[in-house]
């Protein structure tokens, strides 16, 4: 059985090499989403810092504790999260589509989920694999 696996691996290795080339992320749709998200980030950053929102394990941003946000701004934070998560969902879908592999969407989302957490600034809350919030 090991031999069978080995043969399979060998047969697929050129494919693997091919697949390890860069992913296409320079399309108008992806650039548009990226820009919208970068523009929104300054507003979200303050809420990451206060712990009101955190980086969820599913590649989205989620509300952790709105009590950290002054009352008049809470609806706005919710609105920002809605817009950000809609853009993120569209981003994962568009990357999969730009590379001709719509079926990759879930794995792209997973990859992003890890990288959003990895690149988060110290002090931000990140959701671990068990779903608990951990301060970075």
């Amino acid at each position, binding site marked *: *059985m090991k031999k069978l696996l080995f043969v399979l691996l060998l047969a697929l290795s050129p494919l693997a090499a091919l*697949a390890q080339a860069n992913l296409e*992320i320079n399309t108008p749709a992806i650039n548009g989403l990226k820009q919208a998200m970068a523009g929104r*980030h300054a507003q979200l950053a303050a809420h990451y810092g206060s712990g009101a929102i955190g980086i969820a394990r599913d590649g989205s941003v989620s509300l952790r504790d709105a009590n950290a946000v002054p009352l008049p701004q809470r609806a706005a934070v919710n609105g920002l999260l809605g817009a950000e998560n809609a853009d993120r969902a569209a981003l994962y879908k568009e990357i999969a589509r730009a590379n001709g592999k719509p079926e990759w969407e879930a794995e792209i989302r997973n990859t992003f989920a890890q990288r959003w957490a990895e*690149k988060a600034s110290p002090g931000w809350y990140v959701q671990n694999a068990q779903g608990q919030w951990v301060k970075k």
Partner: protein
Amino acid sequence: MRATSILSALAAATLAAACVTINIYFPAAAAEKAADRIIEEVYQLRKDAPASAPVPADKK
């Protein structure tokens, strides 16, 4: 008895092969690199990121 063991071995092999194929197909390293490029621009971690420049100007 023997037939079932062969069958299950085959099934296991197919399963294993299927898993391997999926893992190879998804370019994890490339996806990670692509994600990092986008995330750095969104988080504005790169000093040369084009998105970081117009944002403060926009806010005024």
